[in-house]
């Protein structure tokens, strides 16, 4: 059941990519509407997947690499529905769908076995920490997708460039606020479970690096009026660092966090 839903999700996302490639090549009427419908169907498939897994496992799927990557992909799709309002851009839809496909593929390489929670994970902080991380990383992902259309074929969009830039800024603000909460809930939890709120473990350190990069974005925008291309580059690079924090660190730099 779960695997079938996952496959349906893959197919829908591939259809989004195909439909939008056709749109890029030869725009046709109601094409943005078709893309919207496909994306909404993908979101429904994702929600069904989470419901099924919650029912089977008897707990919310918040606890390992597989589940977190799944949530991350779904969060991006849900956010995209809101972010693309008034934004008619095949390139944006393609980048969102490709990113979700990439994440789901990464998820498929992790074990999807439903395991009971180990003692360290039995904490309300787990849910606060993971839920805010989905929002934070989801915002940064969409900021990066908008950054790509800004840097790439920006003339495809209906919105003016400065409106896209403004949307990127708002996403970064949302992401930065939530990343702050992610780090704080993580620190409070670490104090409760390991007896130390900060240990410079690689995952912690890289989340701090991410935080500093987006803080630099906010400051440079504020003071030097760094808008447009330069700040678009910053959100793309920022998101590359997010991806490294998520996957690179687990593979290359094992630490206390190695189970997530």
């Amino acid at each position: 059941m779960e695997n079938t839903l996952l496959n349906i999700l893959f197919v829908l996302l591939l259809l989004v990519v195909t439909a939008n490639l056709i749109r890029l090549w030869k725009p046709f009427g109601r094409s943005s509407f078709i893309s919207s419908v496909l994306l909404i169907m993908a979101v429904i498939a994702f929600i069904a997947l989470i419901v099924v897994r919650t029912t089977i496992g008897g707990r919310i799927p918040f606890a390992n690499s597989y589940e977190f990557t799944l949530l991350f992909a779904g969060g991006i799709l849900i956010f995209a529905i809101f972010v693309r309002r008034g934004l008619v851009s095949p390139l944006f839809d393609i980048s969102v769908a490709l990113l979700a496909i990439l994440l789901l593929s990464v998820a498929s390489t992790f074990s999807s076995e439903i395991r009971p929670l180990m003692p360290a994970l039995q904490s309300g902080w787990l849910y606060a920490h993971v839920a805010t991380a989905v929002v934070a990383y989801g915002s940064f992902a969409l900021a990066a997708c908008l950054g790509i259309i800004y840097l790439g074929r920006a003339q495809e969009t209906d919105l003016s460039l400065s409106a896209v830039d403004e949307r990127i800024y708002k996403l970064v603000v949302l992401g930065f606020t939530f990343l702050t909460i992610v780090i704080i809930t993580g620190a409070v939890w670490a104090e409760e479970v390991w007896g130390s709120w900060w240990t410079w473990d690689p995952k912690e350190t890289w989340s701090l690096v991410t935080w500093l990069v987006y803080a630099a974005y906010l400051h440079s925008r504020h003071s030097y009026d760094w808008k447009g291309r330069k700040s678009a580059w910053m959100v793309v690079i920022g998101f590359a660092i997010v991806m490294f924090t998520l996957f690179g660190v687990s593979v290359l730099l094992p630490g206390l966090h190695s189970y997530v």
Partner: protein
Amino acid sequence: MMINKWLKQLTQTLASMQTAIYLLLIVGVVSALGTFIPQGQTPTFYMQHYGEITSLIINGLGLGTLYHVWWFQLLIILLCLSILTCAYQRLRRVKKITVLASLLMHLAVVFILIGALWSLGYSHSSFIEIARGQTVSLNNYGFENGRLTLNDFKIDYYPDFQPRQYSSDLSLINYKGKNIEQSISVNHPLKAGSLKIYQSTWGWVMQLTNLTDTTGTIISLKDKDYFLFDEKEQIKVQAIFLPDFEDSESGIHSKSPLPNHPHVWLTLLQQGKIVDMAIIPVGDEVHLGSYHLRFDIFFPYSGLQIKQDSGVYMVFAGFIILLAGLGMRYWFVFMDKKGAN
């Protein structure tokens, strides 16, 4: 006069946004660098693993303890000073609530960093292993007076015998004039002011009696540990605890982690080579090489992390102020377009 001018220039540099952005990015890059170098190893380790020149750089700059090295802390202090000078300059211009909010959140960052430095200097922590029924005195471990007793230790398993939770029933007697009885488990530490006691690890201890001579020495061994009989000949015994012993076709093993059929697996080694081996239940004795041992009793021990840290109050206060500032600052970005920038 000169000094005044010089100071003015310094504060101006510190308060400039350019300096702030550079500092943010430098701290970021340096912290990231530290994740690629194993931390806390000996200088010899880096020499063996990184070649001559690289290890010279690592050891010379202190990259092996990067987050504690003086120049990294200097960077953090510079960041604090930059935030403070900057905040001071804006203090006079607080007219909009967004500026107040931003001031709050910058001061919160300074608060957190000072709390962290405080913890680095004044916190104390210690790891102890305590058997069921044992009492230890906390000032032997560098804390204030107080006696800590492990009354009981329990492990709760899932059906597949993965641990669900482990917990220690503790009494803390006469700590700052108070007595505390509490059961702690992973994620639920005991808190007594700035002292915290965490459930960290656990294991089994076995008690053997050495019957080889008439003295009858008692040997306490943790699961899988060695006891050295003879230093010169390098004769030692290893004790492996088999809580639910079974000798089946697939070999000797423990059917479950529950102590349903407790045995000890003793291995006598000389110069690293196995000389003799035996598996015996509780109460039995055995001749092992030229030694005669009895397996008296076994019990669980609990590994506790004890920590005293008052810097953490400051850090957590900083967290709350930071969240309040962020919430106030960005409410306007989403709700009130005029308030934003």
